[in-house]
C-alpha cells in the first residue's frame, strides 16, 4: 500500500502548492475560494490514502513515525483551513500547508516499512483515540507556534497588534485541551496494559514536560496579558520540547527500550 504513497503524496503536494500560490497572489474572492477548494481536495486525497492503508495493513496506521507524520500532515492542513474559514488569515493556511508538505516530503524521502505486525500491548481500543488526539493536539500547537514565530520576526518591522496573540491563545487552548486528553487517555490505557497509570517512561516524561511548557504559557498569558513577546518566546520554546517528545525521544540515550518509541 505504501507503494502507492508517492502518487497520493505528489497529488496532494501539487494541489496544496497551487492553493498556496493562489492564496499568496490572488486578491479576488473567487480565486480565494478556489484556493480553499484545492487545499481541501489535497487533504481529502491524503485521507483516502490513510483509509486505504488502514484497510490494507489490518491495523491502525499509527505505529511508525512515518504514519504519524501522515496524520500530522492531514490535521495540520485541516487546521490551517479551519482557521482560514474562521479568521481569514491567509498566511496561516499557507504556513500550515507548507509545513504539511514538508512532512509529506520527509515521508517521500524516508520510505516507510510495511509492517503489519502489531505487538499485543498496542492492541487496545485506546490505541486510536490516544494517538489521534495527540497528533491533533500537536498539529494545533504547531500552528500556534507558527503564529508565535511569525510574530517574533514580524514584530521587529513595527506595529504590534493583539490579533495574532489572540489567535495563538485560541490555538493553544484548543491544542492544550487535546494534549491533556491524550495524556490522560494514555494514563488510563497504561493502567489497563501495564498495571500502572504512570511509570515515568521517557516518552511519558517528555510528554509531561511538553504539557508543563504549555501550562507555563497559559499561566504567563493570564497574569501578564500585555507581555506579548515573552509569551511568544515561551510558545516557540514549547514547540521545541514538543518536537523532542515526538521525534527526539527516539534518539535520547535515556529512552532506549521505551515501549513508546515509534518504529522507524
Amino acid at each position, binding site marked *: 500500500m*505504501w*507503494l502507492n504513497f508517492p502518487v497520493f503524496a505528489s497529488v496532494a503536494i501539487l494541489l496544496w502548492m497551487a492553493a498556496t500560490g493562489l492564496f499568496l497572489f490572488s486578491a479576488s474572492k473567487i480565486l480565494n475560494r478556489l484556493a480553499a477548494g484545492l487545499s481541501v481536495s489535497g487533504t481529502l486525497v491524503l485521507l483516502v490514502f490513510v483509509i486505504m492503508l488502514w484497510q490494507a495493513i489490518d491495523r491502525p496506521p499509527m505505529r511508525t513515525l512515518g504514519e504519524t507524520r501522515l496524520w500530522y500532515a492531514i490535521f495540520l492542513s485541516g487546521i490551517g483551513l479551519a482557521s482560514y474559514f474562521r479568521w481569514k488569515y491567509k498566511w496561516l493556511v499557507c504556513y500550515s500547508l507548507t509545513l504539511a508538505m514538508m512532512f509529506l516530503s520527509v515521508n517521500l524521502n524516508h*520510505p*516507510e*516499512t*510495511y*509492517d*503489519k*505486525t*502489531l*505487538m*499485543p*500491548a498496542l*492492541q*487496545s481500543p485506546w490505541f486510536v483515540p490516544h494517538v489521534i488526539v495527540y497528533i491533533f493536539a500537536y498539529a494545533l500547537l504547531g500552528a500556534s507556534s507558527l503564529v508565535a514565530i511569525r510574530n517574533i520576526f514580524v514584530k521587529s518591522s513595527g506595529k504590534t497588534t493583539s490579533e495574532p496573540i489572540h489567535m495563538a*491563545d*485560541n490555538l493553544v*487552548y*484548543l491544542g*492544550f*485541551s*487535546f494534549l*491533556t*486528553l491524550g495524556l*490522560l487517555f494514555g*494514563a*488510563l490505557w497504561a*493502567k*489497563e*496494559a*501495564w*498495571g*500502572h*497509570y*504512570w511509570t*515515568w517512561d*521517557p516518552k511519558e*516524561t*517528555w510528554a*509531561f*514536560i511538553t504539557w*508543563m*511548557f504549555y*501550562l*507555563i504559557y497559559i*499561566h*504567563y*498569558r*493570564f*497574569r501578564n*496579558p500585555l507581555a506579548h513577546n515573552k509569551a511568544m518566546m515561551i510558545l516557540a520554546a514549547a514547540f521545541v520540547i514538543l518536537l523532542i517528545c515526538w521525534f527526539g525521544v527516539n534518539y*535520547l*540515550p*535515556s529512552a*532506549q527500550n521505551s515501549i513508546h518509541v515509534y518504529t522507524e
Partner: protein
Amino acid sequence: MSESNKRKTWQHPWSYREGTIITVTMIVLGFALQIASGGTSFRLAGFPWNLISGVIFLAFLVLLFLFQKKHAVTKWLGGVKAALPAIFGFTFLVLLMGFVKQDVQSKNMLVELLGLNHLVKTWPFILINFYLLVLLGLVTLKRLTPFNLKNFGFFLNHFGLFLVLFSTALGSSDVKTLNMDCYEDQTEWRGREANGTVVELPVAIKLLNFTIEEFRPKLTIIDNKTGKIVIENSRQKFELLDRDAFDLFQYHLEVDTFYASSGRVEENYYPVNEPGSSPSARIKVTNLMDQSVSHGWVCSGSYAMQPEALKINENHSLIMLPAEPKKFSSEVSIVTKDGKSQTALIEVNKPFRINGWTIYQLGYNTKMGRWSDLSVLQLVRDPWLPAVYTGIFLMMAGAIFLFIFGKPKSGGTEHVA
C-alpha cells in the same frame, strides 16, 4: 517588572522574584537533604500513616485559608506569581529525568549522590510536589469562595490535578506490584516483589492453559558472508509470509507450502503440532536479474529445532524470522482466601479484577515461544486508585471545558488571580 524593581525583596506584595527564590531554595535544600541522607530512595510511610498525614495536610490547608485568607502571603500563594516559578521548578526536575536514564545504576558519582537516576523518590521532588500541592489547594479554595459557576472549568482543572498529585504521592507506598510465575497445571500463591522478596498472597492461581497466537513469520535476505540483512534503506526489509507470491529485494518468491507448525524429517517438513515444532515454508525463488530459480525449505526454528536457511546463490540466502506474538493469554482458575473460586481468561490489555487485586498478563518463557509452559502474571493492588481516577476524570472534564469555552475573556475572572 519595573514596579517590582523598586520594591524590596520580601516586601509585600510578593512577585515572581520571591516565587523564584522559594522554588530554588526548595530544590537546593532538597538536593542537600538528598546528599545528607546518603542518596537513598525516599519512601513515604504506608497505611495508615499516609492517610493520617494527608488528612492533617488538608486540614492545615483549609485552616490556613479560613483564618489567614487575607494575609498577603496566603494571597500570594494562591496566585500565578507563586505558581509559575513552582511550575518551572517542577519542569526543571522532570527535565533532569528526561535526560538521565531512570531506575538504572549510574557510573556517575554525582548522579548517584543527587539521586538523579531515581528522581521521583528524592527529596527535591517530594518538596516541590508538596509546594505545588499547597499552591493548588489554596488556589482551588480561593476560587471556590464565593462560589461562581464561571469558575467551574478552573475548579475542574486545578482540583483535578491536585487530587491526582495528592493521591499518587500518598498512595505510592500502598501500591503493591507482584510478579507470579505460573506453570501449567500447577497452583501458585507466592509473588515476587521488584526487589526479589517472595510474598504469600491471599489469592491462589492455577494456570490451566497458556496460548500464544502468532503472526505469520517474516522473510528476509541475508548476505552469506556477513550474515547481515542485505536490504537497506528500502521500504521492505522484511516480508510477512501472508501471501502466495511477492517480491523481496531482487527476487520473486512463490510459496509452495506453508506450515504454521511443523517438524523436520530428513530433507522435508511435515505438519506436526507438538512442543518445539516451528513454522516452515517451501519456497520457489526466482532471481529477477538472471531468471535463475532455486527451490527449497526455510524454517525459523525453535528451542528444539535448528533454523534452516535457503541458499539462493553464492551471495544470498533466504531466511525466516521467528514469528512475532499476536496475542498471548492465560486461562486460569483463581481461588481467594474467602473461598471464591472462578476461572478467567487474562490477556495483554485485558486484566482481571478480583478482591481489590488486578491480574495482568505480563510475559512467558520467550525462549520456548508458543510452547512456553510458563506464564508470568502481575498482580497489582492500588487502594488509592479511585481517588486518582476521580482526579483524572475531573481533569478530562476540565479539558473539555477548555475546548468548549477556550480562554477566559479578559476582565472575566482575572481579578481573583
